[in-house]
Structure formats: C-alpha cells, structure tokens
C-alpha cells in the first residue's frame, strides 16, 4: 500500500513535470533557466524515489516505465538547454507524450542582445614641457565613454547590431551621443556574409576592437587616433567572412571629408554617418591570417577621394585622393602579448586643399602621414584563474606631416615619439584598471609627459 502510494505520487509529479514542460513550450517562450533547474531537481528527486521503490521490491515493469518517462523528461530538459541544435537531432528517437509543437520552443530565437562597456580616464599632465616652458595643461578626469550595445536577431540569417555611445558624460559639457555603428548583417556562410549600415572601418587594431579590456593602455595609441581615426565609422555596404586561415572584410563607404583634415591628421575628416556627404566614395579592405592560434597578422587598405565637392578659388573641385594602408601583427603566447602596427596615409591635391581651407605656413595637411607602434605586455598571473596583472611597454612614433607639398613647411611638434610604461590589472576579465606613465617627445621640444589612470568595464 505504501509502495503503491509512492508510485502514485511519483506519477503525479511526472505529470506535473510534463504539464510544466508543455506550458513552457506552448507559450513559445525562451526556456527560463530557473524553470529548467526546477525541473532538473524534480527529475533527480523522482530518480531517487525510483531507487527507493526498487529497494522495496516493486514490480520491475512498472519501475521500468517510470524510468522510461523520467528519461524522456531528462531528454526534454537537455534539449531545452541545448536549444535549437537539438531540433536537428533526429526526432525519431521519439519523445512520447509530446507532439511536434513541444519542440517549437527550441527553434525560438532569443532576439534581443544587450551589452556595453565604458571607461573613465584621469590624466595628470606635467607642468612643464620638454623644453622647460610651462605646459599650461590642466589635469582632467573624464568619464570618457559609456556605451550600450543593442542587437536584434530577426532570424538566423538577419541580424542587427548597434553600438550607442555617450562620450564625456554630458552633452552640456562638450560631450556627445553617437551611434558608433548600426548595421544589418545577412549571415550566409562562413566564407561570405553581407553587412550594410553604419559600419566600422576595418583598419588597425582598435577601430573594431576598442573595448577597454582588449587593449593595453589607458590612452589609445596616437597612430590610431590621427592616421586611423578611431572610432572610425561610415555608412556603407560590404562583405566579410573567413576561409582557410584567413579573415576578410571589404566595404564600400562614403569617403572622408577633406575639409576636416589638418596638420594633426585625418581625425576630423570622419563623417560618422551623420548626413554624410556622398559625392566621393571609398573602398576599404582587410585581410588577416588567423590560422595559427595566438597569431594574427594582416594588412588593410583604404582608397578613395575625400574632396566631397570641395572647390578651389577657381571653382574647380578638389579630389583629394586618399590612400591609407596598415600592417598589423599580434602574437600571444602564454602570458606574453606582443602587438605591432604601422600605418601610412598619402593624400593628393594637398596644396590646393590647404589653400581652400585657408591654412598657411606650417599648418599644411600632411601629404604623407606615417606612424606605428610596438607593444609588449606580460601577464604575471597567467593561467592562475580569472585575474591578470600585466605590465606593458609601448613605443610609438608618429608624424602627421611626414611630407608636405613644396612651398609648405611642417611643424616639428607633429613629429612625435611616445614611450608608455604601464600596468593593467583585471580582477575578472570584464573589469580593468590601468595606470601608466607616458614620456611624450616631439621634435619641437614641446612634448608634455603625462600620468594616466583608467577604469574600464564590459558586460
């Protein structure tokens, strides 16, 4: 009698479990982790109950039936956890008691994806320049950026992804709110996928990978600020994919706007997708070798005009042909992280551009801009859990006026060398604290050294 009641209770519990499972499925909702765990607990309890019944000598055939049903429930829960892959497993393994509708939940896509990152930067500037004159630089504590990612998966083929950035904390204090990227992907296959919208230009290291936890340094390398103007995004369309040991990206985008170029570089030539002038377009492509774990090596190129119908005094348009190329390499082995980048930009029609923009003397836009850096870091806590402590060193050279047109001069202050020595600590991989000293020299002796502290997070 006792055993019979036990069996009845067991069967009732099983029925409740089946009803729960069916309810989850019928509602078409994404399976809730807590619900799954609850069901797991129930199955575990039932399994224990079966063992007790067996010990009490209950009929083996009834126990076998209960075990069979438990197995089915267990499989169902596993399928809920495995998700859509389970759908592809042949269902002729049979799920008794559950019709095809019960499987629909596996095909249900989890649509919205949210993420984000942010960083705060405290900069202490040397009171004097290298030549001994007063720097006049004011120390600054800036909540540099707070970023939110929003993505939406319409289907397995159509995916939207975006990054919305708030820079410098407040628009009333010179900050800004920008869409850093917003694109629609058509995911076709590994080797070929399409992307259109406001896309990140695939050049250098930081333009695509600029979350604070993925690069060493509280302040981004200057080469990736003035020659590759991170975060550089433009409206366009293109393709990306991977084949063999290679990754590629190729886009046609609206070109830079040369009216923003200066002796300091190309940074203000970005159009950022905001009512971008589309008189001139550019092609950008990138090819990386990633076939050996730990090694990424590649090159990228950007080619197009930047005139955007800018005219000279005679009313003739200035094309401002713009070519930018970069070579980049990274090697990681155990705690060691080595990274290098070299970038060079060449501009045409610079003399006419200078005149159109009203520049004089050494204010010329560079006809050639060149820069690069080598960086090494070593995680002394490598392999000992989720924390990392990485001393790093970066040497950088950049000249945004490497060459200027005949009749124009360059400002030696734009020929800079930077040596950065820092320490990055990550208590967990999603948080980072950095401290660094930067010795900044230029050929004019006006370099101002600085000490930086930063905090960064991603989620």
């Amino acid at each position, binding site marked *: 009698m006792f055993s019979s009641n036990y069996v009845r209770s067991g069967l009732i519990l099983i029925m409740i479990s089946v009803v729960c499972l069916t309810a989850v499925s019928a509602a078409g909702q994404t399976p809730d*982790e807590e619900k*799954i*765990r609850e069901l*797991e607990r129930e*199955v*575990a309890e039932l*399994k224990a109950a079966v063992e007790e019944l067996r010990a009490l000598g209950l009929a083996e055939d009834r126990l076998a039936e209960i075990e069979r049903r438990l*197995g089915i429930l*267990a*499989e169902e829960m*596993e399928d809920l*956890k*495995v*998700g*859509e*892959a*389970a*759908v*592809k*497993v*042949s269902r002729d*393994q049979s799920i008794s008691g559950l019709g095809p509708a019960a499987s629909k939940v596996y*095909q249900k896509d*989890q649509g919205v*994806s*949210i*993420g984000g990152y942010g960083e705060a930067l405290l900069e202490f500037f040397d009171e004097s320049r290298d030549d001994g004159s007063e720097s006049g630089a004011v120390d600054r504590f800036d909540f540099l950026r707070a970023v939110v990612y929003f*993505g939406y*998966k319409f289907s*397995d*083929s159509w995916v939207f*992804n975006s990054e919305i950035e708030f820079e410098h904390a407040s628009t009333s204090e010179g900050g800004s709110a920008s869409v850093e990227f917003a694109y629609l992907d058509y*995911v*076709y*296959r590994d080797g070929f*996928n399409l992307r259109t919208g406001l896309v990140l230009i695939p050049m250098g290291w930081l333009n695509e*990978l600029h*979350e604070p*936890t*993925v690069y060493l340094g509280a302040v981004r390398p200057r080469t990736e600020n003035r020659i590759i103007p991170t975060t550089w995004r433009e409206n366009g369309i293109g393709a990306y994919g*991977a084949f063999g*040991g290679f990754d590629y990206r190729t886009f046609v985008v609206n070109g830079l706007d040369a009216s923003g170029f200066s002796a300091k570089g190309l940074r203000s030539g970005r159009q950022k997708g905001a009512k971008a002038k589309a008189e001139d377009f550019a092609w950008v492509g990138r090819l990386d070798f*990633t*076939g*050996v*774990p730990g090694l*990424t090596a590649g090159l990228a190129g950007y080619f197009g005009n930047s005139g955007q119908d800018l005219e000279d005094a005679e009313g003739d348009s200035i094309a401002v042909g713009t070519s930018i190329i970069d070579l980049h390499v*990274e090697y*990681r*082995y*155990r*705690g060691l992280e080595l990274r290098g980048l070299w970038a060079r930009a060449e501009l045409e029609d610079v003399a006419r551009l200078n005149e159109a923009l009203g520049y004089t003397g050494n204010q010329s836009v560079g006809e050639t801009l060149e820069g690069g850096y080598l960086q090494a870091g070593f*995680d002394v806590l*490598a*392999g000992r*859990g*989720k924390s990392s402590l990485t001393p790093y060193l970066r040497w950088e050279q950049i000249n945004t006026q490497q060459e200027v047109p005949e009749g124009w001069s360059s400002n030696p202050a734009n020929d800079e060398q930077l040596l950065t020595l820092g320490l990055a600590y990550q208590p967990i*991989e*999603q948080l980072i604290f950095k401290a660094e000293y930067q010795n900044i020299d230029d050929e004019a002796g006006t370099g101002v050294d600085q000490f930086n502290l930063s905090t960064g997070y991603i*989620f």
Partner: protein
Amino acid sequence: MGLIRLNLLIVASAVLLVWGTAWATVLITVEEALELAFPEATTERQTLFLSDEQRTTVGEESGAEVSSSLATRYVAKGPDGAVRGWAYLDTHRVRTLPETLMVVLDADGTVRRVEVVTFREPLEYMPREGWYEQYKGQELDEDLALKRGIRPVTGATLTARATTEAVRRVLAIHAVAAEEGTQ
C-alpha cells in the same frame, strides 16, 4: 497546365525555403558533429545524473561552474563494439547569450576536438576554427588554461574563457562518469 506549373513553383519555393533555412539554422547539427568526430561508428546517447558529491567534485576539479546535475554524452563504438570515444554537449553563457559546444574525447579520455554547435552571441565573438585545435590532446591539468596551454583570442576573450571552462568541466564529468550510478 497552369495549375501544375503553379504547384511546381510552390514545391520549388518550398525546397528553396527549406534549403535556405537549413544553411543557417545552427552552425553544425549534433548529428553532423558526431559524424565528423566518429565516422563509421555508431553512437548512443547517454544521460548522466550526477550526485551532489559528484557535482562538487566536478566543480573542484574543473574550477568551472557546474550549473546542472545532468550531462548529455554520446558514446561511439566501432563495428567491433570497442569504444572509440565520447562526445559531450555543454551549454553555457558566453557574454549574455549561450553557446553549445560538443567536446569530443578519445577513448583514452583526452580531447579529440571541440565543435561549436550553436552560438548566439554576435559571430565576431567566435574564434576561428583553427583556434579550437589547441584543445586537441588536452587533459585535465594545469596547462588546460587560458594563457597557458590555450592562447586567448583578441576580442573574444570571454568566449575563449567559456570554452576552456567547458572543456575542463567535461573532462571532470568524464572522470566521475565511470562511477556506478551516474548513468
């Protein structure tokens, strides 16, 4: 005639639709992954029920979170009935969304391969195929860790971490799976 052409068109459209959907539903199906891992072998699905003690052991040995007492594996046997290896499914969160890996073990219990079955995060966070080859031959020791025997991927650190933890978890489960009463 017109009706036949219309029907043909509908059938063709349905075929194209199914074909198009099949391309991108999952990265690889469980069946395909098993076929890749164990060609010409028969596979049998097994469900493992870990006891609380075993679950604790798995957590301690792997250093990874063990969120479930259930584990799914496939045992592969050759025509002679000899075990050729095992394939474990492990579903876990990467950043905010889950992925499912198939961790394939050789008959000697070392890792043969790791297959990504589903990946819900943006594909930018997924390492390339070659990166997963680092796990081949790995066993549950200190070297099976990021920045030791496993090199991280720039921009996909969380995926690399999640993958390494999953492989450690599977190896630890496999170690306790031989115990009586687990299946």
